């Protein structure tokens, strides 16, 4: 097992568990705990990818989420991870990894030939070149997409299991580094609940080499004491392997846990990824900073890495990513890498520092270890094919140039605080010259920033700073801070420095090989070119060159570009502004966003008490609101139309039963119930007697129909109103709204009882016989139980409400029983109805039966612009009382028949053909695509009892067009002809239902 770059006994990996994995088909090895990046480096793999535009060879630059180059497509078992950074995924046995964006192989990439024509590939090249001829864009697009872009999505279903979780906490701390620990220390003493989020698999990943961080043992011991206190406290909760996706207003944030951890346990139900939704009193950002790359020619070659990433690879994984090592820096902080290497006996070849001097302590250490330091020099160019092998440096002062061999170049161009969360939550930034970075401008409501995120890059200093910031926050909150245990031994701090370095070479070079954003292949030339074209505003420049739009969102490139633009335009970085970072900070799978809300859990499903019976009897269901209702009951020898015909004829000739439990039912109780109903409905309820029912439309304040149903007077001051199945909730809200706002003086209470009652509607000429069998104590004759009346009784000691109403046009009894006994009563009904050829019927048959009678379905035959006048229900509008919508209906326009669409019937010329729903209705003189549209078809069916098709429609001035022929044009532009009739086709006198 070759591990050419692995140090012995260093790091947190488990060397007892070697892991075999494949990179582009080659078998490689690593250890449990290795990221893909560390495993590749340990095997000596430096070339990991190709750049997106120019297909230049690229290697690992960082160790964390800011990695711009090594984007992979990973398969483990049946799970696939797309566009995942090699630094962000651990290795697993038999993991198969492919780089993206190369062909036929990573080492020999034919697409790299594009570089021959690279002088043509300036920003905006595609838009300028391929916009004509327009018809060929589809062809170009396929070619362009083949040579560009990131990973490939699978075409089949996502195999990952996602979960969403909610949590509340007092303080959410993003990060678990020294500043986070230090902030949590006083907070926990004051009783706060703390949630700490760490993207790494270890707490405080920056503190691995603790002996070299602290100035003395007292500091170290104090920090260890604080850390133990915080991590072991019962009020501390830590989420490891968790990335912050967004920080929003009102301290709401979203986190994504285990986004690249593979569930390799036997429990297949463990979620692969969890989207956390956190609501907290305060958010503290201790997410550190991102080290920026240096700008020089070929600065993107494999083997060029950020200095603190090299430290992490050594300390955490025991991996040294190269041999001849050189550090190129502008700050004191990056020297930590040199000392980390020294700890393991590795001496770097040289340090190239752009400054003229450095911190005395560092200088002493370097001299003590005979490490060569070259001050006041900068790198002009790097050389190498698939890995760096040489650099060309120049004195900043004298411009004298020399060449140095190396195969690992550590670079550090200062640090960019992680301020994206601050911007996401609406905050702004200010440029600080001293630390050469943008610092968040905090307000009372914004998140607090500590440590690197606040521009405090020294770990020791950040411990002191964070503690003081916490104390200040609690003091402002008027909390008692007098008894807090202070942090000791963190007195005065001798500060490190960062030089604001802008290479004078850059302005002269204008090179296409000085990359300012690795992931989008944006070069110095591109920036200059875009500026020349007038894109001088940062956001314009970003959209034109695409910098910062990759998967890494330009975490380490954005600030470099701002500084560059400031230099080009001779402005300060503050005048240039900053990037408006938007969520997500790190990539999130769509699956994680949807969580459990997909497939059968997408929307709640409501089932009636008889649902299981319907399922057992082959019901085909349709969605009505959230309800599942039987559309029809399928039989093996029938198609849908045949089943529906059978059900319709059973109702017309014998007896059919439908589960109508989904109808909305609202009880209205109180001494002012009549006044309330009089205002809600256009009919008059004052003279309604107990035990009677009334059909009415419900109008909105504009006079339009928005629901309908039967209202029954159950008792004095006690009414039951029925609504449509889908409209029940809306109606309840509507009634409550009026009751609580306009008519709050009414002593009325409303209560939805939809779930309480199962409604079984018995329809057909034999329904009276069946009802009599069910309720022997009731006289169901017309005289005793007339149409539109109501009676209460019981069945086997179960309370029963019977309404004699009809939506089928047949003799009908709607029987309501408490839902707990719905199934029992349904079974009894079928048991007693067996000799009467009883048949269950679904909503499709119900629709045909009601349409034959011209009964409307609100929302199908009406569309929110239909008034009672339009459907011929003008008599329903009381003249002697006020009601909702009355004033609107008095407008002349609503009574102008010539301009209103009216509900009419339609008989197609071809009596066997069903007109399409929504088809347009035109005059015979009109053509398919020209002329006025008179209206449209709203309901259309084949009637088995009439043995012909028919339809309902809304037609302009329809009442005056009875018996006229019209042209029908459907959505496929097929035409047919029909005759307009009155909207009633069966039992025109209404004798059957009475």
């Amino acid at each position, binding site marked *: 097992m070759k591990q050419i770059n692995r140090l012995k006994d260093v790091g947190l990996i488990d060397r007892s568990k070697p892991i075999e994995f494949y990179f582009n088909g080659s078998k490689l090895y690593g250890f449990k705990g290795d990221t893909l990046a560390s495993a590749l480096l340990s095997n000596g793999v430096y070339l990991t990818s190709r750049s997106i535009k120019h297909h230049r060879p690229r290697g690992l630059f960082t160790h964390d989420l800011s990695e711009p180059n090594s984007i992979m497509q990973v398969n483990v078992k049946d799970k696939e991870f797309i566009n995942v950074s090699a630094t962000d995924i651990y290795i697993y046995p038999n993991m198969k990894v492919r780089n993206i964006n190369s062909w036929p192989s990573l080492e020999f990439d034919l697409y790299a030939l594009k570089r021959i024509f690279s002088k043509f590939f300036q920003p905006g090249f595609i838009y300028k070149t391929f916009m004509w001829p327009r018809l060929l864009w589809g062809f170009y697009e396929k070619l362009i997409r083949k040579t560009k872009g990131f990973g490939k999505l699978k075409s089949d279903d996502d195999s990952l299991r996602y*979960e*969403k*979780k*909610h*949590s*509340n906490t007092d303080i959410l701390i993003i990060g678990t580094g020294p500043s986070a620990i230090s902030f949590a220390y006083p907070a926990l003493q004051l009783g706060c609940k703390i949630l700490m989020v760490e993207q790494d698999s270890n707490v405080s990943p920056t503190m691995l080499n603790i002996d070299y961080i602290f100035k003395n043992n007292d500091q170290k011991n104090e920090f260890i004491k604080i850390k133990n206190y915080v991590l072991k406290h019962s009020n501390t909760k830590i989420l490891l392997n968790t990335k912050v996706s967004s920080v929003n207003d009102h301290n709401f944030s979203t986190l994504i846990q285990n986004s690249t951890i593979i569930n390799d346990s036997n*429990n297949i*139900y*463990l*979620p692969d990824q969890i989207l956390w*939704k956190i*609501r907290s009193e305060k958010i503290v950002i201790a997410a550190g900073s991102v080290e920026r790359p240096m700008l020089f020619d070929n600065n993107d070659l494999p083997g060029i890495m950020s200095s603190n990433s090299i430290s992490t690879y050594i300390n955490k994984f025991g991996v040294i990513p190269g041999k001849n090592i050189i550090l190129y820096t502008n700050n004191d902080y990056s020297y930590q890498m040199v000392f980390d290497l020294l700890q393991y006996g590795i001496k770097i070849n040289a340090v190239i520092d752009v400054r003229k001097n450095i911190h005395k302590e560092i200088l002493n250490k370097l001299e003590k270890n005979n490490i060569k330091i070259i001050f006041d020099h900068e790198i002009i160019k790097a050389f190498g094919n698939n890995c760096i092998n040489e650099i060309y440096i120049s004195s900043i002062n004298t411009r004298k140039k020399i060449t140095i061999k190396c195969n690992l170049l550590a670079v550090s161009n200062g640090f960019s605080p992680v301020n994206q969360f601050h911007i996401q939550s609406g905050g702004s930034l200010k440029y600080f010259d001293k630390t050469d970075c943008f610092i968040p401008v905090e307000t009372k409501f914004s998140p607090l920033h500590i440590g690197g995120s606040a521009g405090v890059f020294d770990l020791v200093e950040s411990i002191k700073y964070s503690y003081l910031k916490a104390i200040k926050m609690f003091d402002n909150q008027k909390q008692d801070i007098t008894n807090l245990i202070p942090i000791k031994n963190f007195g005065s701090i001798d500060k490190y420095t960062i030089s604001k370095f802008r290479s004078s070479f850059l302005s002269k070079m204008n090179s296409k090989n000085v990359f300012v954003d690795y992931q989008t292949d944006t070069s110095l030339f591109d920036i200059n070119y875009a500026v020349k074209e007038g894109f001088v505003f940062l956001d314009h420049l970003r959209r034109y060159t695409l910098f910062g739009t990759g998967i890494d969102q330009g975490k380490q490139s954005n600030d470099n570009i701002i500084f560059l633009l400031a230099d080009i335009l001779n402005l300060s970085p503050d005048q240039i502004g900053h990037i408006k970072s938007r969520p997500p900070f790190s990539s999130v799978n769509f699956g994680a966003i949807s969580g*459990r*809300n997909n497939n*059968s*859990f997408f*929307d*709640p*499903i*409501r*089932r*009636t*008490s008889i*649902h*299981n019976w319907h399922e057992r009897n082959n019901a085909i269901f349709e969605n009505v609101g959230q*309800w599942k209702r039987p559309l029809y009951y399928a039989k093996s020898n029938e198609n849908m139309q045949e089943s529906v015909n059978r059900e319709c004829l059973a109702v017309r000739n014998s007896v059919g039963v439908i589960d109508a439990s989904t109808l909305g039912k609202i*009880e209205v*109780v*109180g001494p002012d119930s009549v006044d309330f109903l009089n205002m809600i409905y256009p009919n008059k309820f004052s003279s309604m007697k107990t035990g009677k029912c009334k059909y009415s439309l419900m109008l909105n304040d504009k006079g339009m129909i928005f629901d309908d149903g039967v209202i029954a007077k159950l008792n004095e001051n006690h009414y039951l109103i029925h609504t449509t199945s889908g409209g029940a909730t809306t109606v309840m809200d509507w009634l409550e709204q009026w009751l609580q706002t306009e008519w709050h003086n009414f*002593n009325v*209470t409303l*209560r939805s*009882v*939809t*779930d*309480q*009652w*199962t409604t079984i509607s018995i329809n057909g000429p034999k329904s009276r016989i069946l009802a009599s069998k069910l309720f022997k104590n009731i006289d169901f004759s017309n005289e005793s139980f007339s149409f539109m009346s109501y009676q209460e009784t019981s069945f*086997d000691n*179960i309370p029963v409400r019977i309404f004699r109403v009809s939506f089928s046009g047949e003799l009908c009894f709607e029987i309501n029983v*408490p*839902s*707990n*006994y*719905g*199934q*029992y009563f349904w*079974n009894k009904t079928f048991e007693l109805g067996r000799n009467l050829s009883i048949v269950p019927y679904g909503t499709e048959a119900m629709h045909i039966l009601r349409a034959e009678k011209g009964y409307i379905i609100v929302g199908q035959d009406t569309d929110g612009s239909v008034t009672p006048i339009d459907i011929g229900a003008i008599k329903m509008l009381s003249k002697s009382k006020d009601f909702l919508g009355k004033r609107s209906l008095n407008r002349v326009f609503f009574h102008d028949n010539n301009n209103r669409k009216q509900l009419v019937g339609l008989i197609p010329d071809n009596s066997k053909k069903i007109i399409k729903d929504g088809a347009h209705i035109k005059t015979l003189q009109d053509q398919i695509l020209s002329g006025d549209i008179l209206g449209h078809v709203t309901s259309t069916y084949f009637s088995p009892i009439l043995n012909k098709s028919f339809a309902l429609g809304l037609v302009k001035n329809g009442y005056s067009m009875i018996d006229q022929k019209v042209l029908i044009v459907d959505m496929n532009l097929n035409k047919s002809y029909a005759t307009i009739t009155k909207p009633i086709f069966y039992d025109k006198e209404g004798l059957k239902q009475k």
Partner: protein
Amino acid sequence: MIKYSPSINHINLNKFRNNKDISISEVYFKHYFNIKFDRKVMYDDYINLEVEGLIIPVINNKITHYDNTKLIWISPYEWMCISHSNRFQNICKLPKYSYIDNFKSIFDLSSAYTTIKLSGENFINVLSKLTTLDILLNINSEYCAQTLISNIKTIIWTNDIQKDIFLTVNRSYSQHLLETILDASLEYI
């Protein structure tokens, strides 16, 4: 023939019965009553209202219980009485009490609701997947709340949050809610 038919499919619950990690069961209550009183009378004139030995909670989000009967605070003038005892059918006769002649209404909703009980070590973890309500932060013993669980309006109530929690939901949604809870619980089985 059994008259009562449960609203949820009990076969699904087999492996969740008495499971120490997550236990899910339906709790049958014979009676569910929705009670509304005049708010002014409640808060101005009476501190404690007692019906059939049961104290009506006037503090928000509180429940009171006696034997198999619970009174759950729904809003400042609305309560839910959940009971398995016939004795409390008398609650329907509230108007007979002199001090509540300003009552608004009592609705018998005994068939409209289903109650699901969750217990075991992970029931709070399961709920955290389905609701934004922070159970531990907001719910104490003898507490109740109305919230959305998996987008379904649910009354959450508990006698002792350390032991178990009850979800009272409209009957028509109960099977869907149960299936959602079962799916969220699978990782703990």
